[in-house]
């Protein structure tokens, strides 16, 4: 039996990231205390740029869920949701967020002081079903103004003029609602600035991810938490400054040939959402000198924004972010993974068959088959859940991964 190895280096940027997370929630509480509106909204769309351009603090329940999983309050929230009659077969984000918003929010002494209650809600038609339904439950529960918006699910390769046009219509409706709510005029130049920050953040993001093509890879999937800024701080300088520092640190590592582990031998791809309550799982591969160097999830921000067309840009962002990683178009997802596997010189792929996310899990068998048949890249699948540790057996994970990694080692000609 091989010994477990310890990760040699985490990114220094993690210290700054912890502060950014603390500040994000502290800012939300401050906004609430000062009477500035706090809006709860679904993630991964162009509302965030609009909010920051209008001095409104956004709260993303879906982003709160991984924090609950990391700090361990998810189990309480699941219990609250179950008591309200929600089936334990539903998505863990949904159960956590409903349980938290309806009951958990009243608990005292919460980490980060919990979430400030919403002053208004924006509820979308679509996104994935659990996201859509989360907001419908919230709208029914909180007695606050609700704005109903629309976001059809279109395969990325099929997005055409009428989709963008419709997206812009929706953005304009939301602007009117926010103007009425805040009593402030919308300023297109401030939105342009926010869009420019997002564009820069996406550019930096791609460069940071591209640095992982280097052998040895400067960081692993264990650092995926840096995406916090892509979800919560798009449209701000905070994301840009942070990512610039990350890029500098990562490039320094690349120049010095400093990998996340000392003797990188195997490069892995990870499909589906991480297990937020068990991020150390990514370090498990280190005993075979293996590193997870690319993931499906991180490709959600591979896009560009046009500051000359800020409304169209945030409409486009709203349309693509979700389908990029889900099953709206399996062809597109396969195309992205095929490219990543080649670009990142992947030796094997790990598929997290995620009970909590049907849209990302559907099609995984096809992707695995494609990698094996077209690129001769083996894959392994394990059963898990991105929020609920009760649906994950680490012992079974280890058994599966051990056999797979030993096979990969043999393929690489490194037999221990």
């Amino acid at each position, binding site marked *: 039996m091989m010994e477990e190895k310890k990760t040699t280096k985490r990114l220094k940027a993690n210290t700054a990231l912890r502060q950014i997370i603390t500040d994000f929630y502290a800012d939300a509480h401050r906004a609430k205390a000062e009477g500035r509106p706090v809006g709860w909204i679904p993630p991964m769309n162009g509302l965030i740029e609009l909010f920051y351009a209008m001095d409104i603090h956004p709260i993303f329940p879906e982003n709160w869920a991984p924090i609950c999983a990391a700090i361990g309050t998810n189990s309480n929230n699941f219990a609250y949701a179950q008591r309200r009659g929600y089936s334990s077969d539903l998505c863990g984000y949904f159960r956590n967020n409903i349980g938290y918003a309806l009951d958990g929010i009243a608990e005292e002494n919460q980490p980060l002081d919990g979430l400030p209650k919403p002053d208004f809600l924006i509820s979308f038609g*679509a996104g994935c*079903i659990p996201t859509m339904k989360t907001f419908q439950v919230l709208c029914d529960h909180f007695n606050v103004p609700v704005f*109903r918006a629309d976001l059809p699910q*279109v395969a990325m390769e099929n997005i*055409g003029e*009428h989709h963008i046009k419709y997206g812009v219509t929706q953005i304009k409706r939301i602007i009117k609602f926010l103007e009425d709510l805040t009593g402030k005029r919308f300023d297109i130049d401030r939105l342009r600035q926010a869009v420019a920050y997002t564009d820069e953040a996406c550019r930096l993001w791609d460069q940071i991810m591209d640095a992982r093509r280097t052998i040895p890879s400067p960081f692993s999937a264990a650092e995926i938490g840096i995406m916090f800024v892509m979800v919560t701080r798009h449209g701000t300088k905070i994301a840009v400054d942070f990512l610039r520092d990350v890029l500098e640190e990562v490039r320094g590592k690349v120049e010095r040939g400093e990998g996340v582990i000392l003797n990188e031998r195997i490069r892995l791809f990870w499909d589906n959402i991480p297990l937020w309550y068990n991020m150390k799982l990514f370090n498990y591969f280190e005993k075979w000198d293996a590193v997870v160097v690319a993931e499906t999830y991180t490709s959600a921000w591979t896009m560009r924004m046009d500051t000359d067309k800020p409304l169209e840009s945030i409409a486009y962002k709203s349309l693509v972010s979700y389908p990029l990683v889900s*099953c709206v178009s399996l*062809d597109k997802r396969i195309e992205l993974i095929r490219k990543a596997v080649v670009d990142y010189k992947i030796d094997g792929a790990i598929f997290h068959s995620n009970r909590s996310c049907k849209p990302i899990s559907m099609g995984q068998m*096809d992707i695995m088959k494609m990698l094996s048949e077209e690129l001769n890249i083996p894959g392994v699948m394990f059963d898990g859940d991105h929020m609920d540790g009760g649906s994950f057996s680490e012992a079974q994970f280890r058994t599966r991964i051990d056999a797979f990694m030993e096979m990969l080692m043999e393929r690489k000609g490194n037999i221990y």
Partner: protein
Amino acid sequence: MDINFRDLYERRLDIVKEHKEKDNCPVIGTLCSYVPVEILHSFGIIPVRIWGQSENLHKADALLQPFICPPVRHLMALGLEGHYNFLDGIVHCYTCDATCGLFNIWTRNLKPGFSHLISLPYMTIDESLTYTMAEFNNFIEKLESFTGKKFSPDNLKRSITIHNEARSLMKEVYYLKKAGFPAGYSGISAMNICSQTLPLEIFLPELRKYVKKMKEDDRGSSGKLKILISGSVISDTSLMAFIEEAGGDIVADDACIGLRMLRDEISEGDPLQSLARYYLTRPPCASRSDFPSRKAHFLETLTDFDIDAVIFIHQKFCDPHLSDHPFMKKVIDETGIPNMQLEMEGDELTGRVQTRIESFFEMLERR
């Protein structure tokens, strides 16, 4: 007389295959009741709702995880078994995530000659209508290139007319049953599937005959409790029969196929615009509704059909219905109408399910 659509239902795929051979017309599979079948029909295409239970569910295991809902896994297994090899293509309209995944996986593995995904909006504002017409026009362009035929608004008008007639007659069947006509719900369910599976030119004359006969026959009240069943895909006839034997008369439904499609008529005027309006404003399914719109239609149906009790028939892992259920239960509890939830793993009328239904009716009788 019972409404005997069961026989047509059993033979539906053979009938379609014969029709296809005889008339040399393409057949396109659909996965959802939001697909605008009127457009397919106007091109001379037979739309066929992909429906049924595979006896070899495990065949889907190679492509779908066990936490995907049983109906989706059943359909994939049927596809892999070759039951739908006669299809020339497949069309889907994005509703729930699982069916969209199925559409993608089906297309990749069974490689139909034609495939198309329609992305409908979720609102009914003017811009949504314009957007929907653009989506339909995209669909039409693809069909033109697939069939080599030009789209004809007149043909679409004719298709709309006969779909309207069929829907109106089917709605009448529900009301005649409510008025006391002794028909089992499994017959109505078969009628609903036939309407989505058979060429309308075959289905409609049968439907006309049945409605005429229903009207001629004597009516009498069944004396049973009027039940509404609610869920996604409800296709288990043994479950329907068991509910009716236990003392219920299923007079209304709130399901993928059934009353929701029948409430509205496609209006006259520009056919494409009228069609777009119909699909946007019809009573929504759980995957496309927000709570207020679903609540409104539900309450309307409860009153309209004098419902005594509601039975939710939910499939395991069905996100839209399981996440709506606590809200819907609250809505019904407020009316004082008794209700129960059955969570099914596929279509098996297990002993557990039977006991729960019997207990429910015992409780109802004691009231």
